[in-house]
């Protein structure tokens, strides 16, 4: 946003190097440290299918976080993604019962449209993304309550194929997590090797520059939010696979903060232009480890949201690139 020229002060090179190092291996180091901590403090964790538990709870966090990373990468934020996940899961449970096997495809189209609506309003009316997605968050949340009648919707028919995603797996890692990793690989390829992907990063780094370079910034914003909607829908699919049901207050209804935390711990910059979907995988795994790790060090389970809140604040504070004379709102 600001156009001042940053003069690199003495010793600044080290700082830049540290930042680069953090972005490339930091998330992996954080995850391995937490994993080692848990493995040492609670040795039973590894024997009792702990890895399966972490991987399955990381799956939905990862998918939501990937969408969030794509949106953060263009310098915006999507506060509505977790509510799209729940609404998508509820709609999926209902349509599986009535429409049948075509339902997942249908739902993924619907959630992509939800995301696209976010993007269209943000790009073409130029409202701040946090305010707009806070508004749509309220609408999707209401829609989830209304559609489900504020109760749990169970998958009664045609659910076997989706449930198999969770029940099958390789080496104790459920397919839902593998789905997340595949999505991360695709997102990584998209951002590194395709024209729209590179252009999105350009928007995040310098939007004015991107506009003057003839990049269709508005449509790319719409695309980023559409992808966030799509990935949130995939997260809803993993929730159905795991629980076989969906409810407005049930599994997955509290994915917003973990999703942002996973994106940020995964090295995504909150101010845009920097993200690596492959590292977000480790971010999501770390976030999924938070409840287990905090139990291992003796933090009561009630303090979980406190830990999430602190993780977000501290990680952003540590990794934020800032210059002394810029204006932060």
């Amino acid at each position, binding site marked *: *946003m600001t156009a001042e020229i940053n003069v690199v002060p003495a010793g600044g090179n080290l700082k830049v190097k540290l930042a680069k190092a953090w972005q490339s291996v930091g998330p992996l180091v954080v995850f391995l440290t937490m994993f080692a901590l848990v493995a040492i403090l609670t040795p039973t964790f590894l024997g009792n299918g702990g890895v399966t538990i972490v991987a399955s709870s990381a799956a939905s966090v990862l998918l939501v976080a990937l969408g969030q990373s794509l949106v953060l990468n263009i*310098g*915006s*934020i999507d506060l509505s993604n977790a509510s799209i996940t729940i609404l998508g899961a509820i709609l999926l449970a209902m349509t599986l019962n009535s429409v049948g096997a075509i339902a997942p495809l249908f739902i993924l189209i619907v959630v992509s449209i939800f995301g696209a609506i976010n993007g269209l*309003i*943000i790009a*073409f*009316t*130029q*409202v*701040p*993304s*946090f*305010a*707009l997605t*806070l*508004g*749509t*968050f*309220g*609408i999707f*949340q*209401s*829609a989830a*309550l*209304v559609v489900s009648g*504020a109760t749990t919707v169970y998958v009664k028919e045609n659910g076997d194929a989706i449930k198999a995603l969770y029940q099958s797996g390789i080496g104790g890692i459920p397919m839902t997590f593998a789905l997340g990793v595949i999505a991360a690989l695709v997102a990584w390829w998209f951002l590194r090797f395709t024209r729209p992907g590179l252009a999105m990063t350009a928007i995040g780094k310098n*939007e*004015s520059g991107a*506009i003057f370079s003839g990049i269709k910034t508005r449509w790319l914003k719409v695309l980023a939010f559409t992808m966030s909607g799509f990935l949130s829908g995939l997260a809803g699919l993993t929730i159905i696979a795991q629980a076989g049901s969906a409810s407005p207050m049930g599994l997955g209804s509290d994915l917003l*903060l973990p999703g*942002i935390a996973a994106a940020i711990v995964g090295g995504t910059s*909150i*101010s*845009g232009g920097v993200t690596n979907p492959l590292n977000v995988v480790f971010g999501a795994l770390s976030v999924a480890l938070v409840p287990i790790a905090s139990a291992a060090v003796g933090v*009561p389970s*009630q*303090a*979980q*949201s*406190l*830990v*999430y*809140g*602190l993780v*977000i*604040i501290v990680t*952003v*504070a540590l990794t*934020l690139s*800032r210059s002394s004379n*810029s*204006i*932060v*709102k």
Partner: protein
Amino acid sequence: MASTANAKSMNRAATGQPTSVVASFIKRNVEVISISASIFVLAIIFSILNPRFASVENLENILNQAGLPLIIAVGATFVILIGSIDLSVEGVMSAAGMTFVLMTANSRGGTDYGFWAYVVAIGLAAALGFFSGVLFTKVKVPSFIVTLGMWYVGLGVATVLFGTDTMPFLTNDDLSTWASQQNLGMPNNFLLGLIVAILGALFLRFTSFGRVTLAVGNNEEIARGNGLKVNRNKVTVFVIAGAISGIAGIVATIQLGAVNPTIAAGNLFIALPAVVIGGTSLAGGKGSMLGTVLGVILLTTLTNGLTLADVSPNFKTAVSGGILILAIVITAWSQRDRLRISK
């Protein structure tokens, strides 16, 4: 825009055409007048849909429902006026409410600290606001992310204090009926909201703190260049917002007569849209407490009327969310520009 308006008034002065007092009054207060008119229109529609809407009991009901959001919205107005946002309201409210109940006479026993329960609860809320403010100004973390984190920190504090025991409720009946009792023809909680709003308006208008707040929101660089203590002002704003959320947390607890960690859920969704439709710009520097008061009354009238018109309460957050979107889109519409950057 401003220059053409100036040119027009100069033209008018030059031709000797008198500026109508009424016209200039309308021009200056266009937001207040349009919100008041909307409230009036809504009231007429809802009275036709359900005659019970216009009854005295229901008007008291509306004021009762407006009390809590009004208190919160005053704090939110201060924060939005400096161009920032406070998403931590609900978390801070639950932390303060939980602290308050556990320190006063409650069903779980424990010592009744009386007056000190209020001090500690509001102090805790102000401290959370202080941390948000310092992280925001000194560490330069954008306010929406600091306060999003602080929301969950507050919720976490409330959940830890709550523990695994039964839900604590107030055992002092005078206290638990306080909110709905009336003074000066108004329920106590609305009266408190009004007092907070009036104090807020006076602070904004007549103290140097208030003027600096407006200046910072209007143009931070110029404010800093003129030697104003911008950072100190911003931290103060967050402390005030925190303290007000603390008061709101106590009021919410008193209204319910008990407390659980999710006591404040949904409050952010009434306060934020209310402030924005009240004419306070999300970009900062422009807005008024009167607008906020009217915004809260408009939203409460709307939700109350919809409930009376047999609309499911499940639609409540959708209505607030829709109004928030409408309000921000309408305000941003005139500033659309291909080269403008909005994040």
